[in-house]
């Protein structure tokens, strides 16, 4: 099992899942992962189609893996070898969907009460009151979901799931579509609620910003496999996979061929695509002649209008500005150096340098801004 840091204890969730499903036309969908989720918030990150939602469905009992084992605390919820398959009703795992799935014909309060049947009425009422307060939605208890706006619907959905005191919480992109401030507020309340209970929370997202905001642990997935685990820094700043790099916001993803290696300096030279543009990148496991992929953030590239001298950066490439697109507070420049680079500039910089399409420009790339990624 991939360990994610943290000891195995009673409140941990561990899942080993193998699942294959035929898909119309193309190659079948394959999910093959093994994860451990300790108490606290763990992010499940990856592009669409990576299998994140399917994994959550398996953990919740809404989908059945072909093989594997799912354990929450000390109880096996699923074990293909032992023939154990606990139905979702009995797993005590809370699951908040992307669409929230609030019952439209019931009030917020009735929604929250839903999972608490079989409990003495007074205790039930007390719990519901408590959680509505904790998530700040008391005033909305009599309203129907259609009458409740964005962020508050998410809070009701969370309240509904958590009032049952589950042992695991699964969240499938629950905050998509909300603005950053709302998201942050909800996450804070969620964290506050969890400091007391300390259950594993598995939070699925495909946006970088949420990873940064929530940032405890990250499990990165792609095409049905776990490709990286660790802190957000580890997983996203130096993504080892091209698709992950794309997902993590690296605008430049270039292919090239290794020209030669300089082990002593810890670098190697790579010729990009079919141009004569060569750059120096950190040393990786490759030999001369190998094909590699390099990911560079647009924000990591400097642009000069005259050839710079005496710089520490090892990569200075000459090219021509092909396009300048203003995108709000950012200007996206496309520069052709034999290979096209995307560079992010501020409008102020564009003005002071008096940049325009057709200008000659020099791009400056630090060696360590160039990340080698796998296909």
């Amino acid at each position: 099992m991939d360990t994610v840091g943290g000891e195995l204890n009673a409140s941990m969730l561990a899942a080993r899942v193998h699942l294959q499903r035929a898909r119309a036309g193309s190659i079948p969908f394959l999910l093959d992962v093994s994860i451990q989720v300790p108490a606290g918030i763990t992010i499940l990150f990856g592009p669409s189609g990576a299998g994140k939602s399917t994994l959550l469905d398996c953990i919740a009992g809404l989908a059945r893996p072909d093989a594997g084992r799912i354990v929450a605390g000390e109880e096996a919820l699923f074990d293909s070898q032992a023939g154990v398959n606990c139905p979702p009703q009995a797993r005590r795992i809370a699951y908040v969907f992307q669409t929230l799935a609030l019952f439209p014909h019931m009030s917020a309060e009735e929604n929250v009460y839903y999972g608490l049947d079989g409990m003495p009425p007074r205790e039930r009422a007390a719990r519901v009151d408590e959680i509505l307060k904790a998530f700040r939605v008391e005033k909305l208890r009599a309203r129907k979901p259609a009458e409740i706006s964005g962020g508050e619907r998410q809070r009701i959905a969370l309240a509904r799931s958590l009032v049952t005191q589950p042992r695991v919480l699964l969240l499938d992109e629950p905050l998509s579509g909300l603005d950053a401030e709302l998201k942050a507020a909800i996450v804070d309340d969620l964290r506050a609620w969890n400091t007391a209970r300390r259950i594993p929370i598995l939070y699925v997202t495909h946006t970088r910003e949420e990873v940064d905001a929530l940032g405890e642990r990250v499990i990165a997935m792609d095409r049905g496999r776990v490709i990286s685990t660790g802190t957000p820094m580890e997983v996203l700043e130096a993504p080892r996979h091209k698709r992950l790099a794309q997902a993590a916001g690296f605008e430049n993803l270039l292919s090239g061929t290794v020209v030669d290696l300089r082990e002593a300096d810890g670098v190697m030279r790579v010729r990009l695509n079919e141009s004569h543009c060569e750059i120096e990148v950190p040393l990786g496991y490759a030999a001369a002649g190998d094909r590699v992929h390099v990911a560079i953030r647009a924000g990591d590239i400097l642009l000069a209008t005259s050839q710079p001298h005496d710089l520490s950066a090892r990569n200075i490439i000459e090219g021509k500005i092909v396009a300048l697109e203003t995108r709000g507070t950012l200007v996206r420049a496309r520069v052709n150096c034999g290979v096209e680079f995307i560079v992010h500039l501020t409008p102020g910089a564009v003005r002071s340098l008096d940049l325009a399409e057709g200008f000659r420009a020099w791009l400056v790339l630090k060696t360590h801004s160039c990340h080698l990624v796998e296909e």
Partner: protein
Amino acid sequence: MDALLLSLRLALCVSAILLAGGLPLAYWLAYSNWRGKFLLEAVVALPLVLPPTVLGFYVLVAMGPHGPLGKFWQTFFGHGLAFTFEGLVLASVLYSLPFAVQPLIASFESVDRKLLDASAVLGAGSLKTFWRVILPLSIPGIVTAVVLSFAHTMGEFGVVLMVGGNLAGVTRTVSIDIYDHVQSLEYADANRMALVLLAISFAVLSFVYAVNRQVGRQIGRRLWTPWAAN
């Protein structure tokens, strides 16, 4: 009028039976994954395409002394099933079956699956999920099913003709009565009865659609229309 009351009684009985029996059948057809499901769906839809006289004929044969229904009924009740009110109810239930079941199926299928998942995850078994999530969200479809069964049975002629035997107060429904009057050239009587039938049917349907609109608005869902049901 005897015949009118009889028709109303028949329509109410048939609607009630179709609701009670239609809900589980529709539930199974909506949510089952059995590969042979399409066969049952075709059987349920048969009365839509069979002429009522054909259906009536086969029901009559089945009710006869050599038919499965007839034998069963004879053993339990000591007399035949044809020419009785119960026989009419049975034939009408078969005849109106798709009109009840199909709107119900469509209604169930239109309930967001994620709501069912959420219900399961929150600890609800199938019965609770059905009772508290599927059913309330299917009210417009249920109303449609009941209304269609009722209206269809009120207007039924061919099947009643085949198995009824035209007994006053027992199997002489208003449609048969009107037909009788026409046959006997009593056009004034026929007209009168037909208008009463039309007025009552229109009143019932209008009332139900008005209520349906209200209910639909409360849940915030699109209004169900019978021509969308098929």
